[in-house]
């Protein structure tokens, strides 16, 4: 479909694929499709947030104590890194819209660099937990000063939720890098800014999840 339409189009000219009436309708369809996917992602994470809420409600004090064992400075740096990457990918979309491919690709590379930085910091955070025997679930070894069961639940949910988020960051790196190479290669399926916009929507969602994970795990009040 993409090849068929893109074969005869001039640079800068809008490519309307056969099944659409207008370029506006085509673009709206892509954005709505992407949001539909993001709704399923909200559902995916939603269940975990619900479990989290229930257990934090029940074990408020232990969870506050466990929260103090997480390094909120590292978590804060990671929050800043993700916010910055959200900004750079939004800027990349804007560059794609005006046809400034050179800066679009630079900003996409910067976003990938932020994503990698996030994962490196997360790796050191996980390592610190593992060194102290704070493995998830059955392997959890406990801490001398906190109740075993509830603190094990905390660490299990911490690894499950930040881990699932981490997988999304990894997927983001793969998807953005793929987009960069396809844009460079002038792939026929990339006829305008929409692929960049869709990838950016996904990346903002990853940022969005972290905006909630950060205060929920690192900053639990007394």
């Amino acid at each position, binding site marked *: 479909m993409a090849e068929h339409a893109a074969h005869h189009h001039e640079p800068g000219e809008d490519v309307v694929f056969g099944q659409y009436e207008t370029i506006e309708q085509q673009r709206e369809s892509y954005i709505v499709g992407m*949001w539909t996917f993001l*709704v399923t992602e909200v559902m995916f994470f939603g269940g975990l947030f*619900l479990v989290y809420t229930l*257990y934090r409600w*029940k074990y408020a004090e232990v969870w506050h104590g466990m929260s103090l064992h997480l390094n909120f400075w590292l978590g804060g740096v990671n929050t800043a890194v993700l916010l910055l990457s959200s900004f750079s990918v939004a800027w990349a979309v*804007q560059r794609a819209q005006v046809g400034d491919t050179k800066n679009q690709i630079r900003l996409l590379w910067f976003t990938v660099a932020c994503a990698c930085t996030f994962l490196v910091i997360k790796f050191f955070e996980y390592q610190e937990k593992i060194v102290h025997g704070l493995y998830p679930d059955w392997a959890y070894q406990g801490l001398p000063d906190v109740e075993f069961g509830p603190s094990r639940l905390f660490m299990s949910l911490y690894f499950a939720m930040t881990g699932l988020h981490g997988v999304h960051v990894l997927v983001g790196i793969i998807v953005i890098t793929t987009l960069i190479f396809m844009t460079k290669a002038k792939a026929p399926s990339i006829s305008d800014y929409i692929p960049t916009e869709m990838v950016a929507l996904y990346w903002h969602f990853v940022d969005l999840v972290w905006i909630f994970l950060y*205060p929920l795990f690192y900053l639990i009040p007394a």
Partner: protein
Amino acid sequence: MAKHFEEHGHHVIPTRTLAINLAWLMALMVLTIVAARVTHFLDTMPANVVAMSIAIFKAYLVVAIFMGVKYTTNLAKLFAIGGFVWFLLLFGILIDYFSRPWEPVKGWEPLPSTSLPRTPGVDE
């Protein structure tokens, strides 16, 4: 604010708007850390409300500006908002946990009714 321009149904967000949005998000992040860990003047409940309000506001800024929902078509807005409405409905399940102790069903549970999950070995 710089003039936004529309062309072929897409909206180009000025760099200035994006940068201001980033500045807001960073400031709110610092605020949420200060409120939770640096100062300790807030009680548990207000601290939770402040932390979640800041998170929700940050989420709004990302969705509205960075994801461009503020400038998109009504259909796309409907789908974007739909996801978050669903998320709120999901949390409606908590009503069940809240309300169970209000009307304990005789013979249903041998233990005193509770709104929360039981800990094996502790609550039994």
